[in-house]
Structures are given as C-alpha cells and as structure tokens.
C-alpha cells in the first residue's frame, strides 16, 4: 500500500486549546531534517506565520448526496494538488484540522480521490488531548470523541497539570473509546517527533501490529462500562478467534457490515487467517472504505484472527456472532 514515491500525510486533530499549534511549532522548528508542508485549518485561533504553512478554509465535498463515507475535503485536494506539481517535493505533509473538525473526510480524501491516492498516503492521525480539561467536554462533544476514535496516536498533553491517578484514569477512558491508539503523555506538546511523523497507522504493513493484549484492555473497559464510570457511545470492539475464515463469507459479511453500519464505524483493523491461504490477510477500513492485502506468511505465529472495530453504538454481540459465522 505504501510506496516510496508517495508522500506521507499526518493528520493532526484535537479539541480547541489542546496544544496543536504548540506541537506544530515544535515540528516546524525541530531538527528532523525533513521538509514538511503544513496545511492549517485553524481559523479563529492564532495561526502560525511560517513560510511552510498555508491556510485553508475547511471545504467539505459531499459527493454522494451527503453520504458521510463519500465526503472528502476539497481544500486539501486543491492545495495538495498544487504542492505536488513541484519537482522538489515535500518529504511530509501535516494537516492541522480545526478543533471541531471531523477527521473522517480528511482521511477519506486520501482513499477516494484518485489524484490524492496516487501521490499521498495517510501516515496516521495524531490527536492532542488536553489532560486538564478533556473530561469537561468529552461526554458532550461528539467531535472530541471522534477525534480520539480516529487516532493512531493520542498525545495526552498538559500532563503536568493532572495527577498520576487521574492520568491513568484518563488513559483508560481514552482506550475505552479507541483500543488501538498509542498514548504518550506530554508537557507543552513536547514529544519525540518520530512518534508523530513515523506512525504508519494506515499502512497495511502495520495493520498486523495489533497489540496482542488489546482485548485485555477492552475487557477492562467492558468492566468499567458496567460500573458506570462513564457512558461512552463510541467504543472499541475487539475480536480474537482461532481458526480459519471462509474468504468469500468474510468478504460478504464485511461488505454488508460497512454498507449498513459504515457511517458509525470510524476505524477497523484486522489480521485474518483464510482457509487455503498460507499467508496472513491484513485489513483496515474507514467508514465504508475497506482495504485488504497479503501480509506475508504466518511463519511460527499461531493462525489467529484479530480484528478491532472502533465506532458509535457498536453491537458487540452481533459483531462477534457475525464474525464467528465466517469461520469454517
């Protein structure tokens, strides 16, 4: 999926005041040796005056009667299309979304638009979270929840303003929404930039790198959910099942799943064992867009299916039953 000729794109999200601009400043001034173009959508806040930063108004292209899965960002298509005409290409593109932006159309732009797909790949979604204030609005803000749901990496920023126990609780809260994300605690958004720029979150080669313990964490969440510590409608459902799947059945089930529930499924990642196939099949998806590829031989690894769905109002039992029905 990732070819060297394509330019990586990192999407930077986060609620208002979470520290996105601070992180951008670190990236623009850091000694990473890369030429990074930044597209900034953060109107209304203090922007960055820098030669490598361009401002754009968020522009939603609804391509199919408002279907959320067919929505892309026109501003990005125009600006990135212009940038990539030059011979001296940029090494990396960073897109800062507004604090209230839905990351979905940004990600989908690089899956749905032929020009963008040819020249770019999504390296990952980084979401900044204000550790001090996130709890005040996470339950009321679908934007804040969706930004966490999409994240490959969460930077739990302003960690110095919160005690260790509260940080631990906050991490559990974030993981209950997104079991796949990596969480780094930061102060003033200071972080090893490779953790932000070299994620590979949408690279199918990395999709198999699911944390083998993610189900443990998800079980923790399940427990907390019943303890009424919080009531998040965006959750992760993880499925780990030994055995082989029937390929056509699995394909049909996934296709129907995203056709019916795709609007509520933000991210999907998985590794499948398909009967008769000696190799792993790796899989990922965003809303209705799904992608699969050969992940190479299983080798000494156990043939075990692992998949995670992150979305709103997920039916855990139905997902489990649907997947198990695909087993031979």
């Amino acid at each position, binding site marked *: 999926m990732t070819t060297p000729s394509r330019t990586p794109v990192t999407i930077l999200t986060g609620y208002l005041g979470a520290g996105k601009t601070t992180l951008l400043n670190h990236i623009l001034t850091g000694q990473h040796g890369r030429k990074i*173009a930044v597209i900034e959508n953060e109107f209304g806040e203090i*922007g960055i005056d820098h*030669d*490598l*930063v*361009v*401002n*754009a*108004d*968020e*522009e*939603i*292209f*609804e*391509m199919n*009667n*408002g279907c959320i899965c067919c929505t*892309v960002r*026109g*501003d990005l*298509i*125009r*600006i990135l299309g*212009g*940038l990539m*005409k*030059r*011979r*001296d290409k940029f090494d990396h593109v960073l897109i800062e979304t507004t604090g209230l932006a839905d990351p979905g159309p940004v990600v989908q732009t690089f899956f749905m*638009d*032929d*020009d963008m797909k040819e020249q770019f790949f999504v390296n990952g979604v980084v979401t900044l979270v204000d550790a001090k204030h996130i709890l005040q609005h996470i339950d009321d803000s679908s934007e804040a929840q969706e930004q966490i749901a999409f994240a490959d990496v969460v930077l739990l920023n302003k960690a110095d303003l919160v005690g260790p126990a509260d940080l631990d609780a906050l991490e559990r809260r974030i993981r209950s929404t997104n079991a796949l994300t990596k969480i780094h605690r930061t102060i003033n958004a200071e972080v090893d930039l490779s953790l932000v720029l070299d994620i590979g979150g949408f690279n199918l080669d990395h999709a198999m790198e699911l944390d083998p313990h993610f189900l443990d964490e998800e079980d923790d969440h399940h427990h907390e959910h019943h303890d009424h510590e919080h009531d998040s409608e965006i959750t992760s459902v993880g499925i780990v099942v030994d055995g082989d799947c029937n390929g056509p059945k699995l394909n049909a089930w996934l296709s129907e799943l995203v056709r019916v529930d795709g609007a509520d499924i933000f991210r999907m990642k998985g590794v499948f064992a398909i009967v008769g196939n000696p190799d792993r099949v790796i899989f990922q998806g965003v809303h209705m867009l799904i992608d699969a590829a050969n992940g190479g031989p299983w080798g000494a690894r156990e043939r075990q299916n692992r998949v995670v769905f992150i979305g709103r109002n997920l039916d855990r039992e139905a997902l489990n039953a649907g997947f198990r029905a695909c087993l031979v």
Partner: protein
Amino acid sequence: MRLIAGPVFDVTEHVISARWLADGTSAVAVPSAGAPVVWNGSEVSRELPDHGLLGNGCLAVHPTMPMFATGGSDGKLRIYPTPDGAPIESKLGRSWIDRARWSPDGSRLAVGHGKDLLILDPAGEIVWQSPPHKSTVCDVTWNPTQPDELAVACDGGAYLWKIGGGEPFARFDWGGASLIITWSPDGRWVVTGDQTPSVHLYDVPRDFPLHIQGYESKVKALAFNSNARRLATGGSALITVWNCTGKTGPENSTPRQLEGHDDLCVALEFRPGSDLLVSGGADGRLLVFETEKSVRPQAAYLLDAAVSTVAWHPTELRILAGTASGKVQTFDISL
C-alpha cells in the same frame, strides 16, 4: 494544417498557466513554484517575485491591456499594470489564492479568497466583498454580457452574484462539488466541471439545470466557442463537444467526441472568433481540431511531458503551451 514549433522557454517547474498578454507582444508563465516570468517573444525579459515556499496559485491576464495579476500561497495578489512595471501588491489575508479573473471589460478583478469573493479595481483596492460563503470559493467566472454579474463554484453548486448585492440573485445547488466554472459568451449557460466525473449546466434564463455524466474522471477543462454554440469538455481522453443551441441545449442531444489523445485531456481553448480548438493532454500531445469538420485532429505535436496549459494568441494563428516539466513553447499554425 501543421503545427510549427517555435521558441521554448523554461520556468523549471510545472506550468500552472501561460497566457499571452492582450497586445500579443509578450506572454506570462506561472510555474507551480519559483519565479513567474515575462517572455517578450524571443527571450525571458523578466523574472517576477514568487508567492512563497508553498508555491504560486494563479495568473489572470487583463482582456484589453498588457496587464496581469498573480496570486499564491502567501495570500498576496500582485497586479502588474505593465509587463515591465512595478507590481501593486495586496495582502488579502492568510488564505491561498488560486483563482483570479478579470471582468470582460477589464475594470475589475474577481478573486476567490477562502470563503470570500473579493472584487478589486485595477489599483488593487477591494471595491466589493461578498458575504462569506459556507465553503471555499473553488472558482469564479464573469457573465460576459453583464459586467456586474459573476458566478462562483462553491458549497455544492454555484452562486450567482450581482456586485453590491447582499445575497446571490440565483443559486444552483446540486449537493456535490464543483472544481471549475465558466459562463458562456452569450450569458445563457453557467457550467461547472465537477469532482465527480460530471458536468453541470445551468440554463440561467430558464433557471433549469442539466447534469451530464459518463466522464472517466474529474472534469478539469471546459471551453465555449465565441458564439456560445459549442461547449468542449475534458474528463477523459476523448474531448466531448456539446451543442448548446436551441431551446434545450445539450439535453437529449448527441455530442461530438474528438479523438487523438491517449490520456486525459487537461486543457482546452477555442480560438476567439472561430471553431478551432486547441487541446492539451496528459499524454503530452497538443492537438488542434476544426470541431465542425472532423473528430480527428487537424494538427498534432508531441511535447516532452504532459501538457498543463494552452492559450491562443489574441490575433495570430499561434498557440502557447506549457507542460508539467516546466517548458513553455509557442506553435504557429500553417494552414
């Protein structure tokens, strides 16, 4: 008919736009990055300041005087009253400027700037600003028959504005996304090329929309001939030419499809006052058609890279073509 290759000049980067100035003695070429240049017919006579590290955005050539404007990622617009004069620079804000069009009489310059449509006078002063649109202004075009009217592509369709109006006097909303927009020379049709492989036409007097599908890709090139009877559209290797006459225009009509490109047609322009059409393709071919006579090109030339822009000389049988490799070349047509 034959294309006779003339002088070449190099702007190093992908040519966004290359146009003759109104007097036909010189041309301006704007690359995606680096210095735009003025070419005097034999050599590059001037390098202009660029629009920042993230690149240039547009070129707007005045319709009657050798005057032009450039814009880009730095949010600046520079109006050059003469090819060798100092520019009038306006910093319009922080948004990228990639759309600017002079009005047909040359008295005003329309600029898409973020969600705003700005109207400037030749001195660079903003004389009118539309109320903000819901989304970015993707493209702008003037009504050739009404000097105060213009249309913008944005927010899932097209808004038609009269300068000074508090709200658009018409709106065509199809819930999709348009990339480019043009207004027919007779003022009847407003046409958009779309993000989806389609074209929308709006019959303004009838307030009637048409949707044409079946293209292979986004439609990035549209051109009317001077009498507004023909609309040429890109969107595939075939150039599709629609008949825009009669009560219903292209509706239920069969278009002519012009052959000769092996890859997408990306640039089109009819010669003023004639049915000669020049097209540029991603295959590097520059083709000239007599659109009423044949679906095959009457002349062709293969350039060293994808053609990115084409323009007719204002009076001569001469073409200017720019490429993705940064070359700009003139071609004379021998009949």
